[in-house]
């Protein structure tokens, strides 16, 4: 990896991103260690602060956790395929559904969205990196180590077994004596640090580092949705942090926050959890809304319909998302006034969601629709999420919800929103952005198989759950019995079997994606520079982008800047004519390249600091001495970090900096 790059004289279209890096030798030690300078090999990944490398690492790690979470799901469905399932014991089953949800929410969807946000937000706003590159690296390592820490509980007495919502007092040590919930609480604290630092970082990046001319209302819609999500994280994470601290003090240090015999109120946990938990569902789904809001216009060959409305509805969803948490608690005994208020508030949130669906539909209206795999996934999201949204309206009606909550009907609902919404959007993003990230095209043919098998699989898995739920099967049950299955077309037994078969078809669909990635990685054929005839800034650079992203920072004049550079529209006739190719635009940017680009330098401290945290957490569970050791690592890393300039001195590099040239820096304290 090149620490410092000058614009290459070779054209970007020839894959200049792989140009030989400058020779780098460190001259000065900061703190204890010499500054890392590797530009290749594993060191260049461990100590990197490059938002693109971190984005890829986020993606790979999240994908691994996705497979783990998927395996847990398959075990659950295998258990429930027939009556009185014996694949898992009750204890194992409870761990399985708890860890399945925890993994999918915290270790797959959130970090996968973070992968895209990390990689593409700086590119979409014309920046060279995020505002705080080292904090970015720290966030990634927190997520990874937190996720690994959480999963080591499988080998240390069993995973958490209280459900992902971890209702008290069932999560007290008295009712869950294994260490699973301790791992869960501490692990989520660590991944929470990742989310919080990531949120601050991306907010500052988006607000402060836009290319000249890119006003807020000219930002790509994905960046907008990421921005809304970061604000949700910024305010939601501290609430779950409080809840997790109370949980830890209760389980480890004898406090009685949720101990009813000491006079505690178990509903405190529910309020804290859902004040976090409801914004959390928008945290999961809004990035995917952003992704398909990029993809639908590209493959409809026309701009997003009602950009302003999509932006405002996203912000409205984010805002209203704070006022509906108690709809998870309609059966908790809140009293009719609260229930009525939250019921109406929940209906309100359907309005901006509906606006989004309409805008996507109208974006396609009158377009020139190209059914690429990315487009198929995007359309899949619109259709599948609509089903989830409509079933959502049926339980915004609180009395109806008291029949549906904690049954499989709810399981169906949120899988249509989270799988049908968030996950399909992420897959759309994979196919759309893969050539940008890796310079190679995923196979469209295999991709279409991937899409159809996944969609059939998900509808077979989650569709029948509507029926199972309305027939009265509760969630989180390790088995079901013939006696309560009923007979005829709607019997629970038949549809449970269908759902289980569907889940394995879904797994095949996901497997096809892995196959596609594997096949693509072995192909040598390079992707075209602008394979989709795209519209936004991230395509106005090499594929994969050079380390400094842009040779020269573009000045933005319009929403869909890239499109407007390629095409001219006759305002009278509406006729669109091509005036320039991507290659020409890139060549021009290269000709005007910035001469001297300072990029943030790699650092040991982010990974070291993050490594201290799980050590502290193991200590909380096993021996406080270990916590002290972890604490020392954290403290020393912080000092090392504070003393280290984010950009290494020019004297660290060979050849030395061109003192005559103008500089373009992005270094900050981060």
């Amino acid at each position, binding site marked *: 990896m090149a620490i410092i790059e000058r614009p290459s004289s070779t054209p970007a279209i020839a894959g200049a991103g792989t140009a030989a890096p400058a020779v780098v030798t460190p001259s000065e030690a900061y703190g204890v260690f010499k500054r890392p300078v590797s530009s290749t090999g594993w060191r260049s990944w461990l100590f990197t602060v490059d938002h693109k490398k971190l984005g890829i690492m986020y993606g790979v790690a999240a994908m691994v956790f996705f497979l783990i979470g998927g395996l847990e799901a398959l075990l659950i469905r295998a258990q429930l395929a027939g009556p009185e399932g014996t694949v898992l014991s009750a204890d194992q089953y409870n761990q399985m559904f708890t860890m399945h949800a925890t993994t999918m929410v915290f270790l797959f969807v959130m970090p996968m969205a973070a992968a895209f946000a990390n990689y593409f937000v700086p590119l979409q706003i014309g920046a060279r990196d995020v505002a705080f590159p080292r904090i970015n690296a720290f966030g990634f390592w927190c997520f990874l180590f937190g996720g690994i820490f959480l999963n080591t509980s499988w080998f240390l007495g069993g995973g958490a077994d209280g459900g992902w919502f971890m*209702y008290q*007092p*069932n999560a007290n040590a008295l*009712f869950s004596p294994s260490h699973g919930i301790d791992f869960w609480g501490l692990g989520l604290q660590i991944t929470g640090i990742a989310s919080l630092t990531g949120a601050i970082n991306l907010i500052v990046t988006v607000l402060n580092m836009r290319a000249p001319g890119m006003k807020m209302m000219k930002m790509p819609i994905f960046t907008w949705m990421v921005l809304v999500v970061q604000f949700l994280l910024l305010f939601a994470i501290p609430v779950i942090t409080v809840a997790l601290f109370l949980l830890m003090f209760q389980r480890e240090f004898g406090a009685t926050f949720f101990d009813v015999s000491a006079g505690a109120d178990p509903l405190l946990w529910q309020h804290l959890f859902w004040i976090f938990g409801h914004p959390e569902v928008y945290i999961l789904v809004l990035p995917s809304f952003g992704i398909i809001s990029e993809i639908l216009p590209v493959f409809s060959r026309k701009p997003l319909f009602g950009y302003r409305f999509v932006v405002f509805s996203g912000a409205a969803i984010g805002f209203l998302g704070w006022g509906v948490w108690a709809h998870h608690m309609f059966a908790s005994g809140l009293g009719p006034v609260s229930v009525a208020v939250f019921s109406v508030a929940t209906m309100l949130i359907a309005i901006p969601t509906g*606006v989004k669906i309409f805008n996507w539909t109208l974006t396609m209206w009158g*377009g020139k629709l190209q059914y690429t795999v990315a487009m198929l996934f995007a359309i899949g999201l619109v259709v599948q999420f609509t089903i989830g949204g409509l079933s959502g309206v049926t339980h*915004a009606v609180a009395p109806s919800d008291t029949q549906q909550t904690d049954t499989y009907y709810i399981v169906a609902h949120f899988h249509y929103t989270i799988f049908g919404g968030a996950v399909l959007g992420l897959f759309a993003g994979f196919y759309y952005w893969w050539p940008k990230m890796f310079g190679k095209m995923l196979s469209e043919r295999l991709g279409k198989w991937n899409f159809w098998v996944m969609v059939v699989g998900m509808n077979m898995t989650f569709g029948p759950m509507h029926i199972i739920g309305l027939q009265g099967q509760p969630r989180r049950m390790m088995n079901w019995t013939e006696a309560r299955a009923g*007979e005829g077309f709607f019997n629970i037994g038949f549809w449970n079997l269908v759902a289980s078969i569907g889940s394995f078809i879904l797994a095949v669909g996901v497997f096809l994606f892995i196959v596609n990635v594997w096949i693509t990685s072995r192909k040598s054929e390079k992707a075209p520079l602008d394979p989709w005839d795209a519209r936004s800034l991230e395509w106005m650079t090499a594929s994969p982008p050079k380390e400094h992203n842009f040779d020269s920072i573009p000045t933005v004049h319009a929403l869909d800047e890239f499109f407007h550079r390629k095409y001219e529209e006759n305002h009278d006739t509406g006729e669109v004519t091509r005036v320039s190719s991507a290659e020409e635009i890139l060549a021009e940017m290269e000709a005007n390249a910035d001469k001297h680009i300072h990029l943030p330098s790699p650092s040991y401290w982010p990974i070291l600091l993050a490594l201290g945290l799980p050590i502290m957490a193991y200590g909380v569970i096993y021996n406080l001495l270990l916590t002290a050791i972890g604490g020392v690592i954290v403290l020393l890393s912080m000092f090392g970090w504070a003393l280290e300039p984010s950009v290494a001195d020019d004297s660290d590099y060979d050849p030395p900096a061109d003192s005559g040239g103008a500089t373009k820096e992005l270094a900050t304290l981060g």
Partner: protein
Amino acid sequence: MNGRRSVRRVLPIAGAALALALAGCAKDAPQDTWQPAGPNAQKIQDLQWPVFLVAGIVGVVVFALIGFILVKFRDKGQPIPKQSHGNQALEITLTIIPALILVGVGIPTVSTIFELAKTDDTQCVVNVTGQQWWWEYDYPVQDGCGGISAPIVTSGQLVIPTGTKVLVRGTSRDVIHSYWIPALNGKKDMVPGRVHTLRLEADQPGIYAGQCTEFCGLSHANMKMEAVALSPADFETWKAGQLADYAAPAADSDAAAGEALFKANCAYCHQVNGLTNTGPDGTVTPVLANPDQFVVSGAAPNLSHLMTRNTFAGATWDLLTPECRDTVWNASPEEFGALYLQGITAECLNEVDLREWLRNAPAKKPMYADAAAKEELGGKVRGMPALGLTEQQIDLIIAYLLERK
């Protein structure tokens, strides 16, 4: 080509929506949420079917529109379309339409919420207490329920008179549970330290199945319940039976031997009203269960009239053989009362499950009730431990239990 495929995709989805709407017609699913059997559940039903219908119609319209677009505007080589950025008037219209639909849904929702929360017209009160993993019912002394002169304590099956507005006052002894009889009303969480109320009323005699719906630990799946509705006359008979004196077993019978075994192995947790010890000097002292010394929740089911109910172990297993169970469950409302009040006869006793339970309860129902757990929980267990009974002892205890009517 892809466009056509997508149209074909819309059809099954529309079909599924229709199927969803029809789900209420299924028979014999005892926890079907679309088959109300009393006025409270009926109110929910009246509210929710139009919502499902509207949601279904909106879904079909949206999918039809998307399907149409996918076919009509597919890439047929047409030029790049006009770069239109939107249409403010259309946007506002499309914001107002869902808002109006939701106003239409919201108003009846709010009024139903308040109707279902009414408690001032209660005609019968039952205290319901959840614990891992069974429900206890306690009928306090009251003028309601046709008058109750002494407390009745039972478990597993909630017995209520038909046509009577019953108010469940619920709480929990350990973790949060949720009380749910879908045919009679929605669910309500039963939270330790709080008392929550839930209205139940059944129109017809019969059995209505339910299940705990708030995740409550290891055996959450095995925490079931049934509501049994009896005509007011039959309910009087049932009450009298519950308050009947202890029926001591005949001397030297199997049941008498079973009584001794019961005292030695069961009575320290399970109360049987009227059970006594006679000391060497002839003094008679009552046998009092003391479950709070042995069980985390501090409670165990009262077995005084076990064989008047149809289930055991958290209503997870039936005391009736499958054939007898079918007869009771499928009885007409007119015949049901008499059949239910027969209780468990020797021919109808489901000995298979009951024996397995007595042989090794935690093996049959996952509970935190083994020796290791006892150590971790400070000498108490959650659920019924294995008692180490011999087959003969089990025979005798069953003979004794069969007389608990």
